[in-house]
């Protein structure tokens, strides 16, 4: 690159580079610095080295919040993936009002989490909610949902899967439409049935989209916060407290910003490792046509 062009390159990069530097790079570096201190946000910081990390790693609360986050991911990912794929297959057919349904299922994705969580909180209200009224009418048991420690996480999972269905659907629809019709035609000519065509042709050829959805959903899943904060605030009795919720509470409820920053970095490391493993593992099952 010619030297006199460098100035122009910087000039055109600036609109995205400056916010990235200011709102991502600077906070990251400063949170790493904060994580080595004891700091209540108000008094001066006090150097503690790696104490925050060693304390967090031996604290049962850390284990609990990671466990809850894992349970969340384990419930959310299959639901959102199966649901999104099912919708994509359905809306890939020639149906009346197909465009309307595609838009309708995508609507929750662009809706604010606070609104969605409040609506679900109302739907899942144990005494007066629509879901329990229906269950009651059917004679089924009526769970306590967000008021019951056993059901609080499932309630959050249900709302989250519902909201993100449309996102998975759109990615999968794009993947489905990228599959060349002649491959499916060839399979049909060879006598493959509908199930075989789906299982042996469509699904393997969708694997790049599947890979993308799994990676993104897991990264999002580990960072789940908004819906938990609105629906359960981590309760009852901490039964639905997740990692980012704990980071929030440590900082803004308890004034332990150093530990919160350390926990952020632990979460970052966990997500990095999981994503790296997925990228490495993709060679075995992702087929780029």
């Amino acid at each position, binding site marked *: 690159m010619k030297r006199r062009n460098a100035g122009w390159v910087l000039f055109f990069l600036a609109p995205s580079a400056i916010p990235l530097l*200011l*709102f*991502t790079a*600077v*906070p*990251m*570096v*400063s*949170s790493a610095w*904060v*994580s080595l201190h004891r700091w*209540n*946000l*108000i*008094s001066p910081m006090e150097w503690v080295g790696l104490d925050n990390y060693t304390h967090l790693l031996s604290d049962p609360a850390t284990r609990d919040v990671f466990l809850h986050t894992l349970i969340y991911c384990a419930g959310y990912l299959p639901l959102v993936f199966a649901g999104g794929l099912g919708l994509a297959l359905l809306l890939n057919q020639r149906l009346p009002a197909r465009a309307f349904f595609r838009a309708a299922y995508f609507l929750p*994705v*662009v809706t604010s*989490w606070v609104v969605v969580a409040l609506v679900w909180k109302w739907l899942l209200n*144990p*005494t007066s909610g629509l879901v329990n009224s229906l269950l009651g009418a059917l004679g089924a048991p009526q769970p*306590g949902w967000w*008021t*019951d*420690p056993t059901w609080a996480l499932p309630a959050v999972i249900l709302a989250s899967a519902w909201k*993100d269905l449309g*996102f998975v659907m759109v990615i999968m629809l794009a993947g489905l439409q990228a599959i060349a019709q002649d491959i499916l035609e060839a399979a049909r000519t060879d006598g493959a049935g509908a199930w075989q065509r789906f299982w042996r042709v469509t699904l393997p050829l969708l694997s790049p989209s599947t890979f993308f959805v799994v990676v*993104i959903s897991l*990264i*999002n899943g580990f*960072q789940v*916060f*908004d819906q938990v904060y609105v629906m359960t605030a981590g309760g*009852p*009795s*901490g039964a639905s407290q997740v990692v*980012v919720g704990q*980071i*929030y509470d440590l*900082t*803004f*409820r*308890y*004034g332990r*910003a150093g530990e*919160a*920053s350390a926990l*952020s*970095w632990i*979460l*970052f490391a966990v*997500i990095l490792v999981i994503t790296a493993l997925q990228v490495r593992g993709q060679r075995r099952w992702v087929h780029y046509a």
Partner: protein
Amino acid sequence: MRSFVRRGAAPLVAGLVLALAACSQGSATRTEEPAAGKSTVRYMNFSANDGHEKDLDAIKAAFEKANPDITVQIETLPYADYFTKLQTAVAGGTAGDAFELNYENFVTYTANGSLAELPGVDAAPYKPSLLDAFKADGKQYGLPASFSNVVLFYNKDHFTAAGVAAPTASWTWADEQAAAAKLTDKAKGVWGDYQPISFFEFYKTLAQSGGEFLAPDKKSATFNSDAGRKAAQFLVSKAGRTMPTEAQGAGTPDFDSKLFKDGKLAMWHSGIWMFSGLADATFDWDVVVEPGDTTKASAMFTNGAVVSAASKNKEAAQKWVTFLTSSDEMVQTRLSTSWELPPVADTGKVSSYLTAGKPANRQAVFDSLDATVLPPVIERQQEMQDAVTKELSAAAAGRKDVPTALADAQKAVDALLK
């Protein structure tokens, strides 16, 4: 996915605090430019929220009339968000020149150096015990703004219908339990009793059964005792029997006040700040001093007004908090609106409270003051409150037995005291 971009930064929430600090002139909380020769005092509070905003405005108007060179700018926030917001605002340098603190959080804020010492306070108007509550190391860092206590509310109609004698000041836990059992009618959705299973009810019932929450040196917790187990058992045993459980909605905001207002609750342990909200109740209700066990002990809460160490208008801010906590206009406003009580030494000034309307037995509010218990306070207050509440709710939901829950709670509080 739009939220992906946003959530991508979520683990760095703590780092963003620095960015918040950089926004110390954030527009949402900016002080309006005062006119020449006038100064503006920003005041943050929670106790006017949800019904008393106009009453605080009346005090502000009276102050501004008496001090034409000072303008007061009031920010009222819900209690549930107040301390989170306040901490962030103090850290970011956007806190008001003056703000409200409850007694429980006063220690945390004096310890972190965010309060200005108030010079030359005239002690005469204040109840001495309340004034002392806002001292640290012998210096005055805040002025008591109000106090309130908790009494037993009861729905007279339920008592009459069930043929149960109304509560009296001499009731004990056993009387309360027996009445609650008779008044509970689950088929009709009517509950006999409601008392939150929380830190705040626990330290009080502990005092009622003769226990101590902290050792005298405040270096260790002492509530895992016979008295403590008895108190915890008393609270926990209500859940599901005479009181709704967590799974039935107990513990969610406004659950209990709604239940009582709907006429579905016979007895309710709650604060006198609820009086004005119940003015339009369609049933007959009254209050009585809370039942005790081996002794009587009523919860007393006090809120104070403090001046921020970072304020550029300390003198004007102190004038405002002094007026807010000791003026006759404040006393009149608080009494006529059944707000929390004014912290005044002169009991003659508060006598009109007794005849200010429902409930009839307002004398119970003052009788409760004969034996009060203040919340135990430590530097890591919020964590202690959360830890104790969490263990007690686990016991109430049957996930732990009471002795285990109390032992675990004591261990958690001891760790916070290290």
